[in-house]
């Protein structure tokens, strides 16, 4: 956190000064470790073992926050008798289909829920999984029975609590020592601190970044942490939670209002050709009828109204048919394969640099070279725009400029100060940026580009039926200034939504399913409440309390802590004075406190839903997790996950050690690409070391926004690899020397930083060396400093839930000296692929 979010880290330092204890778990000793109270080195890719052992520690010793767990989680729920655990099936859950390499999750369901949809229609089912369906749970949960059978004594052998207990029983401190390389004394200290600092009076928070997500079991890493935090009563409470520290200014916004293939704004699933025929069918299958997600018809219809306006009517399903349909995975890496195979002809790359920033860069560049046309918009000439004249494949002779038929348009972009608009930060906070000045020369905002491109395209339309969705699209925004910049505020207002009177809505609860409201993104409804740009609010911090509700606007409904109903006990009283956040004011008959309560403000704690109630009315006054169909925090996910209802430790796709827990070595549901452009490392002694990648404070991602800046480039001018002194000595490498790092994908060279901050770990009785590589360099991109492309080393293998690549743990070999050039480099690579 100190490395990649230094300014956010001030709050950790603040907490430390007030007595909080900071533990840092990382494959390397980083700047964060330096400031932590304790540093725990870990083998990259083994976090579920550590977290699972913490869960086991809690369950075996009865350290859970029982009142919280009983009231707010599904611990007491009874699971179907059909369910079989990985402990029974040697690393597989029940429902595994080896043919399609996917799970049928029906057996994971709660007991007695026979009425729920079957087969293809189950969330988490094959079609769902093959289109990264679980990602649509960014704003809510998958559907499940609203009031399943429970056993409040937690004794029932098939209740979630007991299942969890059995599932994690083998995740012991000894296992942590054997697989993670963390000494059991260090684990004991962590376990003691985490449990001692949870409960009524205290909370523990977890912070993670892509060190948890970029794995073939990434989503399950987060699930493991969620289970632990729910057991300890740390969710929905101040000082608790699991904080995802995201690495780009509006990467949260980029999933809320996604430019992602599988979701629509507000985490509504993109329709799937095989799952959804029409609007009703779609709504029936995507999510439960209970909980706030039960309102999804209002959300979707309002979105369709925002996009197709008058043309969207009840009779035509509100133009639901205008939406293109998925038939499977159309994600980033699959698209690249489509480029290589020639199905993708035109490509827009907007403020992104896949030629160096995406895994398996060689495949990326092969794809780019096989396009008809490519549009790149950026601040500088990034490598993606220039691969045809200076890409590494030219050096090896794999490509020749004159053979590349791709037509390339480079359009310079406006910077963040040359346009107005909102970023959504890592805490879901939308902040409006004022425009400081006009962009120079031909530089334009992306808003300008898409707005005017849309106008030009619409001018070229015919009466053809296929042009109807574009023809009928609402595409009329006020223009400003000499450049005819479209009004970003008008767009934000459309996102916020308007009611039947044409006035801006103030809350998503006002959305209607009858076409009388229009809203571009239901979770952002309220950002333009009262016709005021709420994201532009800048009330100084000194003039408001610690929640600072009048600085920007957080989705949903300006809530700063999600599920904060859980900060009060079932009766609505704060768990403790120290941790009071929101509470029920019986006199006024409403919820109150420091934050916007994350429940209906007038719903009393003793509210019990009547039979047959739907949406939020189906949730009791004690249900804090209002987006879930049962209002509970899920210790066990009966649906929605592509790779199991509970996390299990699997080795990374490429790992130097076997999985001693199960016969199943790696996540069986992980998504692989069997492609010659990007082969996998063969198991065995050829690739003996663990490789992990990361960022440095001084640079940003693949370097497009840092390498061209002298003040940043001079601070970390060259690609280096971090290596422990013992391995360096064995390889005869001195500090500052050159080393060559090899995977089946490529060979690269880096300067060596010999450092005791990298520690060899004793894993399964042998010493494992971990190599660390920051990935900020490339061959050009207007950079003042250059270096080999680290992402080229990575395998194309994805988490099955969200299709994120495994960039944090793989195997590699290290050789002393610089890498061979040209043809000789390919020859060396061949010896590793086939040698």
């Amino acid at each position: 956190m100190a490395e990649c979010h230094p300014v956010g880290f001030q709050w950790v330092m603040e907490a430390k000064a007030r007595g909080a204890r900071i533990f840092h778990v990382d494959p390397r000793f980083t700047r964060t470790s330096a400031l932590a109270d304790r540093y725990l080195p870990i083998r990259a890719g083994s976090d579920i073992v550590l977290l699972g052992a913490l869960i086991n520690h809690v369950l075996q010793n009865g350290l859970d926050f029982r009142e919280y767990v009983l009231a707010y989680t599904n611990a007491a729920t009874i699971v179907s008798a059909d369910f079989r655990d990985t402990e029974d099936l040697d690393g597989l859950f029940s429902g595994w289909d080896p043919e399609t390499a996917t799970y049928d999750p029906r057996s994971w369901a709660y007991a007695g829920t026979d009425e729920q949809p079957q087969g293809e229609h189950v969330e988490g089912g094959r079609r769902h999984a093959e289109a990264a369906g679980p990602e649509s749970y960014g704003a809510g949960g998958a559907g499940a029975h609203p009031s399943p059978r429970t056993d409040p004594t937690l004794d029932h052998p098939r209740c979630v609590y007991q299942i969890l207990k059995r599932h994690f029983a083998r995740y012991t401190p000894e296992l942590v020592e054997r697989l993670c390389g963390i000494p059991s004394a260090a684990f004991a200290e962590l376990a003691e601190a985490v449990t001692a600092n949870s409960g009524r009076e205290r909370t523990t928070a977890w912070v993670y970044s892509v060190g948890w997500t970029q794995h073939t079991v990434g989503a399950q890493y987060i699930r493991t942490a969620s289970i632990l935090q729910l057991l300890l009563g740390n969710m929905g409470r101040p000082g608790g939670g699991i904080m995802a520290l995201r690495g780009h200014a509006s990467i949260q916004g980029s999933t809320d209002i996604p430019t992602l293939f599988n979701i629509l704004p507000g985490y509504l699933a993109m329709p799937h050709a095989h799952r959804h025929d029409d609007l009703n069918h779609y709504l029936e299958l995507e999510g439960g009828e209970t909980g706030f997600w039960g309102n999804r018809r209002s959300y979707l219809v309002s979105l369709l109204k925002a996009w197709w306006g008058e043309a969207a009517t009840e009779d035509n399903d509100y133009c639901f048919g205008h939406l293109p349909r998925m038939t499977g995975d159309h994600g980033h890496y699959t698209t690249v394969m489509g480029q290589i195979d020639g199905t993708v002809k035109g490509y827009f790359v907007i403020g992104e640099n896949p030629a160096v920033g995406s895994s398996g860069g060689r495949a990326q560049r092969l794809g780019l070279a096989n396009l008809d046309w490519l549009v790149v918009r950026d601040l500088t000439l990034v490598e993606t725009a220039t691969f045809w004249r200076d890409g590494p494949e030219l050096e090896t002779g794999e490509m020749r400029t004159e053979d590349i038929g791709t037509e390339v348009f480079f359009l310079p972009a406006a910077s963040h100060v040359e346009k107005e608009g909102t970023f959504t930060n890592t805490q879901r906070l939308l902040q409006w940026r004022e425009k400081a000045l006009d962009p120079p020369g031909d530089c334009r905002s992306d808003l300008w580009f898409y707005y005017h491109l849309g106008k030009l395209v619409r001018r070229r339309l015919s009466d053809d039926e296929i042009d109807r969705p574009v023809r009928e699209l609402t595409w009329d925004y006020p223009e400003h200034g000499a450049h005819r910049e479209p009004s970003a505020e008008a767009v934000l207002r459309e996102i916020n939504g308007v009611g039947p009177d044409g006035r801006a809505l103030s809350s998503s609860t006002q959305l209607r399913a009858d076409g009388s409201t229009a809203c571009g993104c239901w979770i952002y409804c309220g950002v333009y409440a009262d016709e005021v740009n709420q994201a532009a609010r800048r009330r100084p911090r000194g003039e408001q309390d610690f929640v600072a509700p009048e600085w920007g606007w957080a989705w949903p409904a300006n809530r700063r802590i999600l599920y904060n109903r859980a900060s009060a006990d079932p009766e609505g009283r704060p768990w403790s004075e120290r941790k009071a956040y929101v509470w029920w004011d019986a006199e006024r008959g409403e919820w109150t406190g420091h934050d916007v309560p994350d429940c209906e403000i007038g719903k009393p704690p003793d509210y019990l839903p009547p039979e047959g109630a739907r949406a939020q009315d189906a949730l009791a006054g004690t249900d804090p997790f209002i987006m879930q169909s049962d209002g509970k925090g899920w210790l066990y996910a009966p649906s929605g996950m592509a790779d199991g209802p509970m996390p299990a430790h699997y080795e990374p796709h490429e790992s130097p050690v076997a999985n001693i827990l199960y016969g199943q070595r790696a996540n069986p549901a992980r998504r692989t690409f069997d492609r010659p452009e990007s082969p996998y490392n063969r198991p065995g002694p050829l690739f003996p070391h663990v490789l992990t990648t990361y960022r440095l404070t001084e640079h940003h991602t693949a370097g497009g926004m840092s390498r061209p800046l002298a003040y940043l480039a001079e601070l970390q001018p060259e690609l280096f690899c971090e290596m422990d002194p013992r391995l360096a000595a064995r390889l005869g490498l001195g500090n500052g020397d050159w080393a060559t790092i090899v995977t089946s994908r490529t060979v690269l060279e880096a300067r060596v930083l010999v450092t005791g901050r990298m520690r060899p770990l004793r894993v399964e009785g042998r010493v494992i060396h971990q190599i660390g590589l920051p990935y900020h360099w490339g061959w050009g991109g207007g950079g003042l400093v250059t270096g080999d492309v680290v992402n080229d080393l990575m395998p194309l293998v994805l988490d099955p839930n969200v299709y994120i690549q495994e960039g944090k743990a793989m195997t590699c070999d290290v050789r002393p000296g610089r890498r061979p050039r040209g043809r000789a480099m390919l020859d060396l690579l061949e010896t590793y692929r086939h040698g």
Partner: protein
Amino acid sequence: MRTEGAAVPEAEAGFRSYYGKPVIKPPVWHEPHMPTYLYLGGMSGVSSSMAVMARLTGNHRLARTARLAAAAGAAVGAALLAAELGRPERFLNMLRVFKPTSPMSVGSWILAAQSGLSAAAASADLTGGLLPAAGGAPLLAAAGDAALLATGLTGPLTATYTAVLVADTAVPAWHEAYRELPFLFAGSAMAAAGAVAMLATPRAQAAPARAVAALGAAVETAAGTVMERRLGMVGRPYREGRAGRLMGTARMLTAGGGLLAAVAGRSRVLTALSGLALTAGSLCTRFGVLEAGRASAADPAYTIVPQRERLSAAS
């Protein structure tokens, strides 16, 4: 200086440092400008003293040589100093303030006076010699003599202030030598001026110059020996590396040249040998001192070890 391994090499040479990097900055002054200036300034200063004495003792031939040498040394020296500046066009800013705490400020005023006065003294002499019959000659000569007498004050200051200039720094080999350096520089300056006068004056009139040269050589040699002995570890840069070679050469040339000066008498060959040796010796000394300062600054040991010792002695 980079050390293998990532951690700071601890107790490697009895002290700790930051990757062996220097603590202080080495002097930025360039060769040959600065050492040559030190030589010329010293030569000019002592030449002025000699000119005064020669004038007083009636040795006109020697007085003329010394006047010219003083003027030329000061002028060329000042030009070298200006060239040494990062912003030579701002040379006059040297006279913006008078700062007693700055040897360079004091020195600038001294050098301004010395170069002005010695130029006046020299030009009066030259004009007088060229225009013996001119009407204003006596007046001019008197003014020249007055200027000359004034250089009797500025000369010795010019010759020795430079020792304070280098000693008044954080460079251990210079600062710690502040007692001996003025004598070293004075001796070197005498040897230099004596040598120039020996070489440029008919040998019959050059006896005082030979004496000055011999005395200077003796003073320089003695001061150098005392300095290195007293400095101990901090004096190591004067004995090692390039500075050590320069200082060693200087020692030989100066001692040899001084001995020769004492016995040269009216021998043309010996005088020439002596004069050249002393000139070279004096130059070597100046280059050597500058180089020793640079080496002393570059190695953190010279900064850290004495300070550590001082601290342990105090505690």
